[in-house]
């Protein structure tokens, strides 16, 4: 059991990106805006997406030969954190994961075909789930039929499926995992079934796949490792976003605790509120340290044991911390916290979404135990 990779770097790229992400997110989102977007179909503002394209962030992790910034996905971590911190729900993490997947797994012609449009702002996402268990093996099958394949079945709770132009579907050929690149126009609108999420600022849909014809060029043959790695990167993005959400949750609590009085005293002076609030801070700090450690060491190739550990730990800690923060945010706002108008509502609902995405903390700890003890 070697366990002493304690690297944290903050590169110039990240530093630059961090500064502009902070400003950009503050300018374009807050809880009020997030509430306004709840009733929209796609859940985000396409103008904002256009600005993200302008900033080059749609290609931040994509090789410059395909029009990207070649910064690596780590550079996007501060962006995603700031999005969480301003409750900006936009399909950016889904997009990053899709382009990262093609960048890692695609062959030359697949990269040439898909990465430039993704850089240019076509939106991507990845469809993982065959059922509600993030720990299960992929099941959806491609059946060979002459010179192509047929894909029939269903994918569940695909993030941002409705707004995606390119959906990469995890499937299998003879039990071997493959990722299949599907353009949304290949699906009929009625095959996308939007789900009603507890986090009303997020969007996900089930996808019915009925004898979809898949050409060999759409297929990226995968390994157990790449499936694992792409889920781990998803976990890390989710963790980074969660760190941002915990931070705004904490600020919202602190605001209330420093203005609301009860029995003649500011309620933040009561230790039964003050100390758990400190606990939220400490847990957020832990999650943030783990996230930036992971961001400092993840490789562009197959993830090392250290990186796997770092991603698992980030997600396990961030989700637990956000679940706690969201729950306490409601409680500590008292009667106000029980209303839809109080922002604690946004945070506790986000916590339920974030907790299960890419596997809950227990799942990640179980994976860690296998990596470390077995």
């Amino acid at each position, binding site marked *: 059991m070697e366990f002493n990779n304690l690297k944290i770097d903050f590169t110039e790229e990240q530093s630059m990106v961090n500064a502009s992400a902070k400003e950009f997110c503050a300018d374009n989102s807050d809880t009020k805006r997030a509430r306004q977007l709840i009733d929209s179909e796609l859940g985000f503002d396409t103008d904002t997406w256009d600005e993200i394209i302008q900033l080059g962030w749609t290609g931040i992790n994509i090789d410059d030969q395909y029009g990207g910034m070649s910064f690596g996905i780590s550079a996007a971590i501060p962006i995603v954190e700031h999005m969480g911190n301003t409750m900006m729900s936009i399909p950016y993490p889904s997009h990053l994961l899709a382009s990262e997947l093609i960048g890692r797994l695609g062959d030359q012609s697949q990269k040439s075909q898909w990465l430039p449009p993704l850089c240019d702002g076509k939106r991507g996402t990845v469809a993982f789930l065959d059922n509600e268990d993030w720990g*299960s093996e992929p099941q959806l099958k491609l059946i060979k039929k002459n010179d192509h394949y047929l894909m029939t079945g269903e994918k569940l709770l695909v993030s941002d499926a409705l707004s995606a132009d390119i959906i990469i579907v995890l499937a299998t050929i003879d039990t071997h995992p493959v990722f299949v690149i599907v353009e949304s126009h290949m699906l009929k609108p009625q095959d996308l079934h939007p*789900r009603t999420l507890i986090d009303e600022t997020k969007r996900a849909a089930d996808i019915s796949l009925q004898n979809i014809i898949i050409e060999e060029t759409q297929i990226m043959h995968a390994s157990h490792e790449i499936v694992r790695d792409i889920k781990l990167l998803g976990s890390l993005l989710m963790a980074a976003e969660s760190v941002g959400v915990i931070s705004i949750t904490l600020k919202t609590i602190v605001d209330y605790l420093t203005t609301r009085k009860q029995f003649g005293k500011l309620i933040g002076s009561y230790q039964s509120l003050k100390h758990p609030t400190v606990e939220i801070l400490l847990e957020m700090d832990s999650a943030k340290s783990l996230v930036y450690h992971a961001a400092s060491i993840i490789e562009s190739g197959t993830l090392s044991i250290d990186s796997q550990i770092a991603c698992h730990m980030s997600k396990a800690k961030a989700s637990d911390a956000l679940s706690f923060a969201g729950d306490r945010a409601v409680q500590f706002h008292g009667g106000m916290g029980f209303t839809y108008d109080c922002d604690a509502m946004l945070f506790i609902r986000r916590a339920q979404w974030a907790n299960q995405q890419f596997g809950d903390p227990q799942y990640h700890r179980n994976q860690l135990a296998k990596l470390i003890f077995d």
Partner: protein
Amino acid sequence: MHNNKHSKTELSLFRKKVSEWLRINKPKDPGFLLPQTFMEIGSEQVLNFLREWQFKLWSSGFLGMSWPSEFGGQGLPPIFQKIADEEMKKQKVPICFNVIGLGWAGPLIIDIGTEEEKRKYLKGILSGDDIWCQGFSEPNHGSDLGSIQTKAERSQDSYIVNGSKIWTTMGNFAKYMILLARTNNDSDRRYDGLSFFLAPMKIPGVSTSPIRKITGDYGFTETFFTDAKIPASTLMGEEGHGWSLAMKLLQYERGAEAGAAGGISIIPTTVEDVVEVAKTTKKDGISSLKDPITRDELIKLLIDQKAIYLGERRATFNELCMDFPNSLPLSSKLRMTEFSRRLRQYALTVQGAAAAVYVGDKKAIQSGFWQRAYLNNFSTTIGGGTSQIQANIVGEHVLGLPKD
């Protein structure tokens, strides 16, 4: 109304009868998620469904059984209602929604009301025709009744009411409110300056504004009084006795034996229910109920749940409560509501990715019952004194620790 000795046979025959009746008459799934408490009635649709059910229960003779027969009851010993209630709980039928009427206003009217008041109010409470609400809490004053600001000023044979109430359950539907208002402004008389009214709601000067809950549903209102004129005859007891009447209400909460009309007012959630969920979900490809961590967590919950049930029983033996008298009753709210929060939150964890959906989603486990139940649970850890305040109460009144 006295608890005559009824033979065991008679009672068990009755139990059989009610059980049979419920089996046949229990409403079918209406296609929408039914409320667990009367604080969750956000639409006419839900209200009408529950109103129909309560009417059916009452008109079939299983509600208000111990209330006087001349006012809609049957004058039977409370044991019959208790048995009926137990069977309703067992069969998980819908709640009897008119809770403030059935459990608070009704018993009080029977206790101290005039003949005329009984005639006017009781039957409508039972049939569900007259919906009642409660007007105690006020904005910005949490649950400290001593700081109630709503004023009721005597003017000839009326009182003129001004002020506002918050967290009025079914305020928008209610015909009557049990209202606590200040009839004396003397600052030394924080509690005995309060009076208790059976106030009409559908009169000029009374308006309500719905409060949207964290769940997205409605169920509460804020209620505003602007020179609302209510008859002086709606005063219960004497002027200035409001606080003591409000305290009196608490005793009725102990159920039919204490005067309540009966019916179940809350659909409890149990660990067994969550175990049923766990049976249908998987962790890493195997049944959640085979997952050691899930098992350990569920067992922890089962232990705490059993301890709660047993605590109610142990509290009846003085000798088993000598070390810290009153500990069990005074900590009951804190213990139960916090347990329920843990349970309901865990019920989501058990669902895996399905935890992420909500009421309205077609594939949601139990139509999103647990998601809504978790969020709704905060009304119990916040309302009626937050858990933090409850812990102070236990610390100070059971352990004798100093005040903050």
